[in-house]
């Protein structure tokens, strides 16, 4: 069974993002970029499945700027087998990505597509779901546990009320949550090997997909600054204030 893992190059999770002066987006000049952390978890899960013998090959794919090649190399260094880079300078949106992934899945015929539940740059949380719909296959989102048995995969999902377990027929789509695993550090020998692993260069037109953005960003602004707190003298004053704010009856 093949596992397909899409990975996105995003602003590094340690970086404190700054909004551009003109409010058109986040300033990415000179900012450290890394693999989306949820995608790292997806790569890790796929490699573990291969190490357990449940999968035979891990194929990673990234859709984005030419520099996303570095992100793919990171995934290869972690242990993925080969990579596909679909280069576009458009700001990629979930639907276009899902369409390209659908086309790649048609070619590659993976048993599982494991994606991050969302990318930390736009927090869309849509691509996996859209891909499942386009492929007409079952989905197990927000996975905290994934077990493959024969023709099915059992996914434990983190939902609001607790955990939900679903059993899906393969091929299936899984999106990862934070607690699924802890991604490994790439070992030095694997970093060296990653260089010679195959990486195919493609464009959206190869898959007949138009990536022109359909969503217009009207404005991006910093979250409001926290205003200073106040000290209350006693519980009575606290209750009075809360009532005045309408948060206590």
């Amino acid at each position: 069974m093949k596992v397909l893992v899409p990975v996105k190059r995003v602003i590094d999770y340690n970086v404190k993002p700054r909004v551009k002066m003109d409010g058109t987006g986040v300033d990415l000049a000179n900012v450290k970029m890394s693999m989306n952390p949820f995608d790292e978890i997806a790569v890790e899960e796929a490699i573990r499945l291969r190490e357990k013998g449940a999968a035979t090959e891990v194929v990673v794919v990234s859709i984005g700027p030419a520099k996303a090649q570095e992100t793919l190399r990171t995934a290869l260094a972690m242990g993925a087998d080969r990579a596909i880079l679909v280069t576009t300078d458009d700001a990629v949106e979930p639907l276009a990505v899902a369409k390209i992934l659908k086309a790649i899945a048609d070619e590659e015929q993976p048993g599982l597509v494991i994606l991050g539940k969302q990318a930390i740059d736009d927090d869309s949380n849509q691509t996996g779901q859209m891909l499942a719909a386009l492929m007409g296959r079952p989905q197990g989102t927000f996975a905290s546990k994934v077990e493959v048995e024969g023709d099915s995969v059992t996914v434990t999902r983190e939902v609001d009320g607790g955990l939900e377990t679903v059993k899906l027929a393969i091929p299936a789509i899984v999106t990862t949550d934070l607690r699924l695993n802890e991604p490994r550090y790439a070992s030095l020998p694997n970093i060296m090997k990653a260089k010679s692993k195959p990486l195919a260069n493609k464009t959206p037109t190869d898959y007949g997909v138009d990536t022109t953005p359909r969503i217009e960003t009207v404005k991006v602004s910093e979250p409001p600054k926290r205003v200073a707190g106040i000290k209350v003298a006693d519980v009575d004053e606290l209750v009075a204030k809360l009532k005045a704010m309408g948060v206590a009856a």
Partner: protein
Amino acid sequence: MQVYDAPLRDMRFVLHELFADDGFGGLKKFEEFTPDLLDAVLEEANKVAKDVLLPINAPGDIEGCTYENGVVRTPKGFKAAYDTFREGGWASLASDPEWGGQGLPESVNKLVEEMICATNVSFSLYPGLTHGATTAIEGHASDELKHAYLPKMVSGEWSGTMCLTESHCGTDLGLLRTKADPQPDGSFKITGSKIFISAGDHDLTDNVIHLVLARIADAPAGVKGISLFLVPKFMPNDDGSVGARNGVSVAGIEHKMGLKASATCQINFDDATGWLVGQPHKGMAAMFTMMNTERVSVGVQGLGINEIAYQSAVAYAKERLQGRSLSGAKRPDLAADPIIVHPDVRRMLMTMRVYAEGCRALGQWCARALDAEKHSDDPEVKQRATDFVALMTPVVKALFTDLGFDAANLAVQTYGGHGYIREHGVEQFARDARIAMIYEGTNGVQALDLVGRKLPANMGRNLRPFFHAVSNLCEEMAPKQDKALKAYTGGLQQAFGALQLSTATIAQKGMKDPEEAGAAATDYLRLMGLVGMGYCFLKASKIAYAKLAEGAGDDEGFYKAKIATAGFFFDRILPQATAMFLAIKSGKRSLMALDEAAF
């Protein structure tokens, strides 16, 4: 706050850009290591340093190593971190692939070492000493010993030590007493007590392999009668597992100022079985193979602490609100301005910064020479690299560790009282940095090595590659019209003049009276270090200007900062060269004037 993120942009600058034309590059052996691959290695090393080693740095300092019933334990988390480190292949980064290493160049290794030392210098000693021990074994041991020990040591499953020091003998190894009795089977029985042995015993590996200096019966007195032996803690079985315990025991561990998570052990050898490494009585030469790469690595300890001290100070200086800027409030919305607005705080931050960037560049030059010395096919290049390494090894060791301690001290000062208390982890940098000025030969002894051995060797030939590079750069830059570059060049020319004159003075006076050379040594080493850093900053500025002229895109900020940082070095640090020159010129007179009784 112990704050660290490897300065990857500057590391890539020194690795790929700064020395592209130094003649030491382009080694066939390293063709496969393309820049993007090396960058990926540095990125991942940064992750391991930040996420695995830094979190156990301050806790390791507080807990320290423990010794109980002859057993030494490292602090909590060290074993797990060591396993992650070893399994990732980081322990064998620069080792020979013949023995299972990754065979990466020293130029990269030294940058990775910088990250490890910055985030946990105590930890760095365990893999560091093992690596040093493997180089001595590779260079001098019999094939049998190599096959029995190198694979396990290169993989980091077994660790190594170097056992030189005894209670009555530190600098002067000629005094050492540990004995080696030849046995009929060709082995030796080693008996004696060693002290201060780093990584001498611990719980990170299954076996500890000691490289011990000892004296064979009837050996000539002094350093010419010392031999090197390999003595394992456990005798290895033929299948590579560990067997019976050898006659090696730990009598205790030292309680020290810093470096607390590194086990510094007193070790007793009682008829312990050992094997000769290299020729009888030639132990010092064999040990020096190990010491030479180790000395550069100890310099890198200073650099690593310098960098984390700098970053931690910058983080605090941007947050701590005290006083108002002398040029008017910068943050009127806050109760006070962040202390980074104050010129005196800037002085401290900039000093740490130029020390780190200057040492990183000079260290990289030296690391590239280490690679060329070992792997160049061109005998002329090889010779030049060898001469350069010989000259620069004591400079790198002493300069980097002196400045590293100074930087740690400045970080404490930047934090004020909050630096002196434990909570922020900044005083640890000062305590941890202090030892590097002492071990692997004190910095005073490094200076003597420079003036007493490295200068006179081969009629001064060791100086040539360095002096040529500096004078060529000055000549090339002198006609440049740009104002800043002109001033930088003038500064370097003046300091270089002071270095040349001092060299001549020492050569003349030192020949007649060796005490004159001894009196000049420490100042002379600093002077050479200043000129070395000045050379690197001028070259870096030249490159930065060229890149900016081409249009540096995203890198514009980096190059502009490089030029401004160099400006601080030329304005505020390099002028110290004149003071060194005057001190050297004054000779030994005032230094030796007092009678011993007057002290």
